[in-house]
């Protein structure tokens, strides 16, 4: 990475996370590598089942075992390999150093406790605050995320809040221990567009203020365009392209990325047909041999079935990497 002065906070390196189901193995994440720089947002995009969420759960070591396990690879957080950490050590890292927010805030919040008590629990556990200080911290956090009248809201239950407010509470909980990395897994997918704008602005503002890094997982390319610094495009358990956001949108090089952009109604002219990617995403139980995109790729050739293309740098400084055998043909797409 030639990014001036920015150091890597998290490096996912050759990660493989598998699940066993009825005797068969699903290779949900199958050789994923990406880097998140300090103070930056990495957007991970891909369609359902591409493994983007399983990667983030692997970082948190929250893969249910059984049926799942980390088969291979390293996840280095400030150089420390999380895959080798004990459960005890992970508990110290979760919340304190890496925090996570989810798509559906109603299922992530406990309905029988007040929102305040859920934040208080986190800060007492992780930061050892006494009850009064923890409550004050909870109110401060609710205020930080823009919840009106936080001293009253702190005693309310999740069902008393709207969807946008619940997501704010989730963010308050995640931020309460001042993490270095916030993993946001489809944080606005369940929200209306005006509320989505509020939440994404809030995350950007908090990042500005604290200097944390954000891993933003989404299926929405427009959300990535406006919020990420780097982007990793995932397909069938692998990263197929990785680049700074402007570079990716200006010069997408993988046929899959190009196909995704072409199918966006935003970029089509009215009356013009949308380009489509034929077929459907292959099952994680039976990925095609060689390049996994070849079954849907408009330029695939025999050689694509023979070997898996590695994620290789397009240029010397290695800011833009693509996994495709046919880069020259793809450039003409």
């Amino acid at each position: 990475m030639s990014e001036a002065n920015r150091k890597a906070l998290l490096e996912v390196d050759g990660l493989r996370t598998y699940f066993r189901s009825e005797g068969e193995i699903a290779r949900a994440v199958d050789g994923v590598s990406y880097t998140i720089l300090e103070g930056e947002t990495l957007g991970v995009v891909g369609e359902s089942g591409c493994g983007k969420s399983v990667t983030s759960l692997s970082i948190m070591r929250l893969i249910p075992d059984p049926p799942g396990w980390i088969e291979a690879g390293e996840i280095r957080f400030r150089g420390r390999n999380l895959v080798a950490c004990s459960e005890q050590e992970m508990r110290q890292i979760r919340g304190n150093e890496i925090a996570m927010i989810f798509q559906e805030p109603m299922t992530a919040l406990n309905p029988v406790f007040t929102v305040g008590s859920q934040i208080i629990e986190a800060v007492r556990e992780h930061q050892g605050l006494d009850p009064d200080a923890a409550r004050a911290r909870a109110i401060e956090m609710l205020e930080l995320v823009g919840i009106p009248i936080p001293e009253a809201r702190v005693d309310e239950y999740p069902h008393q809040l709207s969807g946008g407010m619940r997501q704010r509470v989730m963010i308050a909980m995640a931020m309460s221990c001042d993490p270095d990395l916030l993993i946001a897994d489809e944080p606005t997918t369940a929200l209306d567009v005006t509320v989505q704008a509020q939440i994404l602005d809030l995350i950007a503002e908090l990042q500005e203020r604290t200097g944390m890094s954000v891993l933003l997982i989404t299926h929405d390319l427009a959300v990535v365009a406006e919020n990420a610094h780097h982007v990793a495009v995932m397909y069938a358990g692998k990263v197929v392209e990785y680049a700074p956001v402007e570079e990716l949108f200006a010069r997408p090089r993988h046929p899959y990325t190009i196909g995704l952009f072409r199918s966006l109604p935003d970029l089509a002219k009215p009356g013009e047909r949308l380009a489509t990617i034929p077929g459907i995403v292959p099952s994680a139980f039976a990925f095609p041999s060689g390049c996994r995109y070849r079954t849907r790729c408009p330029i695939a050739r025999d050689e694509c079935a023979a070997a898996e293309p590695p994620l290789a740098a397009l240029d010397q400084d290695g800011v833009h990497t693509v996994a495709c055998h046919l880069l020259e043909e793809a450039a003409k797409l």
Partner: protein
Amino acid sequence: MSATTSTAEEPLIRLTGLKKYFPVEKGVFRRHVGDVKAVDDVSFQVGRQETLSLVGESGCGKTTAGRSLLRLIEPTAGEALYCAEPGAAPIDLFELSTKDMRRRRRDLQIIFQDPFASLNPRMSVSHIVGEALRVHGIARGDELDGRVADLLQRVGLRAEARNRFPHEFSGGQRQRIGIARALALGPKFIVCDEAVSALDVSIQAQIINLLKDLQEEYHLSYLFIAHDLSVVKYLSDRIAVMYLGRIVESGTTHDIFERASHPYTRALLSSVPRPEPGRKRDRIVLQGDVPSPISPPSGCHFRTRCPVAEERCSEVYPTHVRLSATHSAACHLIESETTQA
């Protein structure tokens, strides 16, 4: 296609003053204590082979409006004139008996959002797609089989799919089955209720293209209910923007996207992220959430979140101001704004 603007021809659907109230009851005697005014005085027209989109955030009443129009839920008040052929006498769908309405549903169909919940998992695809043909006594036996096979092929599935069950298909394929079902009776009008919202972007594009092709081929009219404005912009001829049960602005797609007048429409459009990194955003961030439809704010329902609200906005609900032959908006401040400009 803005055939509806000419006065000569009666549109396919002319909905006037639709209201749907859900009573709020309390206590053991189920005392009536108020109403959720899910849809409150909504009027629109849908022309032949035209796509009208209803847009707005969750709870704005767009789905209730679409379902009330088809009488999948009974409307509280209003008139829905349906004119099957140009020149034919319009009939009021809301006045039809249940039996007549059932017969009329041959012309009026719906596609749902969730392709997982809207197909009966115990029924084979041929049963799902062919059911309406059987119920309406249109086809049976081999003819029915043939029709189902044709329909499946028309929506891009293999004819063999008819012997399989919904769980064997992906989300996009299931949505195709739902579309085949809606097409079975040769409808003139289809309500697409968030029909592409649950799909991945590459699959969404396939379904959008299919809906467009079918519109051309069968001269269909769509009422497209959606919250994704980029899809709406691409598909619609005209757009009506709803907020808390009412239409706040309506116009052609161009009117709405290029000349939005209502402060809510502007805020909504400005909140939509665009796939253009580094674009300068002049976003109007709305404060707070949509108020409860049980007790909407007095006067203009939007005034509590409106960046330009004045005192008079809390007094009366604004009437629609006509901005052009195709474009209108309900806001007290619009006239003054246009004179300024």
